[in-house]
């Protein structure tokens, strides 16, 4: 523990991460406006800086992106590529301290308080990290250094791309005073909270810091105190160690159906395909999970999401599918056509599921899954697959399955 000593917290934020990785992998894309898309109907997950100049933003659909920038190049995302790059970036960070907390796929906090003196200070460390990441991967990042996570995060976002912003405790109040509530977003202050604050007449960090604690408490409950502190640039949250449990959050896939449908055999087939894909990734990461989420978007864009938590852990596509289908049945009889389906699994743990079964039929299924994984790992995904997936294949292209969320696995 560091006691009352001023902490030195560093945030690394990779710039336009997915797009930059794609540009590095394919030199043809470098310097060009590209967007990385996740789903079948193509929502922009990341836009390269070249595309951003034309006003292309995350969350737009491809049509909107093309209207903003007619020659934008869409690229289908590959989460495994981003995860493996992230894992290698973590290794660079871990050369300095084990107090590295993976915050999302492209952001990490580091606590340098006890180690900065070995490297000649936080600024030197930041520059070395930037240099290593640039040299090894050709990627740029923005770094913020501050006495706590909240301010480090704001500092990290302050200059992009390739920025470096360092703040000492004395500089924090003046720095915070300049910020609007909108600029505080993403540091424990969501968009909705920001909107509510503005509604209450709180438009700047300074106003938030000076707001009446009781009033914030009445409006936001226990979080009120935290928000006030955000406004003041105060935050005591420690940075976790890299070996702490778990940056692993969830694994999942979603797919927008090529056509809105009421046909349950199509729904079932897509659920099975999504379940198989999710389970195969889960096993690839040597994980098992026990909370299954099903997401459904209807033709009117209304969302349904349901979940089920088991007492035991699972990692096979069939088990996942059975639960997803059970959750789907809550929607029966179907009143609207289904547009998108998503299956994901959380509550993950390292795979202990070599637990043997007593009964022969279950043992056989377990062996079958292993054999299928071996074949698919060797010859490519879905070389061997359940026959029921055929329907889904006839309706859409497997490879266009996207990824839900920013799941990230440590090895």
């Amino acid at each position, binding site marked *: 523990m560091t006691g009352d000593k001023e902490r030195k917290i560093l945030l690394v934020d990779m710039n336009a991460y997915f797009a930059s990785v794609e540009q590095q992998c394919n030199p043809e894309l470098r310097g060009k406006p590209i967007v990385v898309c996740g789903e079948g109907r193509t929502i922009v997950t990341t836009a390269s800086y070249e595309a951003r100049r034309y006003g292309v933003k995350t969350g737009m659909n491809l049509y909107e992106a093309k209207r903003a920038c007619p020659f934008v190049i869409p690229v289908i995302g590959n989460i495994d590529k981003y995860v493996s790059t992230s894992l290698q970036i973590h290794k660079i960070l871990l050369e300095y301290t084990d107090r590295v907390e993976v915050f999302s796929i492209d952001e990490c906090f580091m606590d340098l308080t006890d180690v900065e003196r070995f490297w000649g200070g936080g600024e030197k460390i930041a520059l070395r990290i930037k240099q290593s990441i640039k040299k090894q991967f050709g990627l740029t990042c923005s770094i913020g250094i501050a006495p706590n996570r909240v301010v480090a995060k704001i500092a990290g976002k302050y200059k992009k791309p390739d920025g470096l912003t360092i703040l000492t405790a004395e500089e924090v109040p003046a720095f915070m005073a300049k910020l609007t509530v909108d600029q505080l977003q993403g540091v424990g202050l969501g968009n909705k909270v920001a909107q509510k604050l503005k509604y209450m007449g709180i438009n700047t960090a300074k106003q938030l810091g000076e707001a009446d604690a009781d009033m914030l408490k009445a409006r936001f409950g226990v979080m009120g105190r935290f928000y006030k502190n955000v406004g003041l640039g105060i935050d005591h949250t420690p940075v976790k160690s890299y*070996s702490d449990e778990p940056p692993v959050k969830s694994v999942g896939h979603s797919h927008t159906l090529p056509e809105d449908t009421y046909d349950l055999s199509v729904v079932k087939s897509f659920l099975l395909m999504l379940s198989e894909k999710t389970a195969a990734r889960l096993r690839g990461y040597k994980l098992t999970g026990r909370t299954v989420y099903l997401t459904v978007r209807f033709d009117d864009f209304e969302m349904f999401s349901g979940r089920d938590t*088991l*007492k*035991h*852990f*699972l990692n096979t596509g069939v*088990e996942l599918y*059975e*639960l997803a289908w059970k959750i789907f049945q809550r929607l029966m009889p179907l009143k609207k056509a289904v547009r998108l389906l998503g299956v994901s699994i959380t509550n993950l*743990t*390292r795979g*202990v599921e*070599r*637990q*043997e*079964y*007593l*009964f*022969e039929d*279950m043992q056989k299924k377990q062996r079958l899954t292993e054999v299928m994984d071996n074949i698919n790992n060797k010859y490519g995904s879905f070389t061997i697959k359940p026959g029921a997936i055929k329907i889904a294949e006839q309706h859409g292209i497997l490879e266009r399955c996207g990824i839900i969320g920013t799941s990230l696995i440590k090895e």
Partner: protein
Amino acid sequence: MKLKTKRTEILDSLQIAQYFISTGSTLPLLSNILFEADNDFLYLSATDMDISVRIKCKVDKIEQPGKTTIPKKIIALIKEFTDDDIKIETDKNDNTKVQCKKASYKINGLPAEDFPVLQLDEKKLESIKMSQKLLKEIISKIYYAALKDTTKRNLNGVFFKFEGNKIEAVATDAHRLAYYKADMKTGVKSKFDYIIPLKTINEIVKVLSDDDTKEIIINFYDKVIEFQLENMEIVSRIIDENYPNYNQVIPKEFHMEAFVNKEEFASAIRRAATITSDKSKIVIIKLDKNKLVINAQAQDEGEAFEEIDIKYDGEPIEVSYNAAYIMDVLKVIESDTIEIKLISSMNPGIIKGKGNDDFLYIVMPIRK
């Protein structure tokens, strides 16, 4: 309906009824308790549509017979009264007045006519009478081994087989299995097997008595089973599926057999399990000449080593288990010495009390 009762008399019955009230049902009626008073007794019923209970309750005086359903909050209310004399009176709109000394409460109920009762309209196949203590013993020895969720419906219950005067009961989650067999004083003419939902088992075990003289009557129907106790009847749906062939997975021949002091083994496993991570409780058990070694390790967290003296003269062997599975059975075995019987590190192993073949616990290893 109008009656007077002692608080303690009715509270016991109400609290039993509470076990059976459906939780999280969208049907308001299922959160209510059915009150039916005839000239002699008050009957309380509760159900969640899969299992239902009807409790006979003696009260001070029934001034006017009748029936109604009352929301379960009446239980909390009666629990909080401090005086023993309580008056309950229902008007024709199913609103119930509960009075105790100077306190008076009105609770809005629903008509009794709509209350769902599990029907016993099909033909009763046969009955059996057995000791409550024995049934409680059988259930408590095995029911923790059943699957606790419904991913495999047939395993989310306890399997019972009645044949002649023999009873066999099994619970398994597909990785471990608990088996109990016993003789009853009386028997059945034909053969019956039922998978009784774990939910029903959990409730039944709470109301069974330890008194050896108390008996329970079990009535067999095609799709339901009824348990009759002195002052209550419990009707449960059964799980209408096939149970796996457990006889096939209980090994009959072994290569290795060890005799281990139960307490020493149990406390060593419990200690070793503290090192394993919360979710994967893998312990490695090694048998060697007259000693048993337990190893456990959690990545970056630490490791455990335990050694205990045992009686063993077989080949050295090393097997990995889920510690939770081992701890479960050690809690219910009564004998001081247990037997561990193994074939190999890949086959099912048996844990049981020394010299007792009526209760067996079979557990699968974890493959490396």
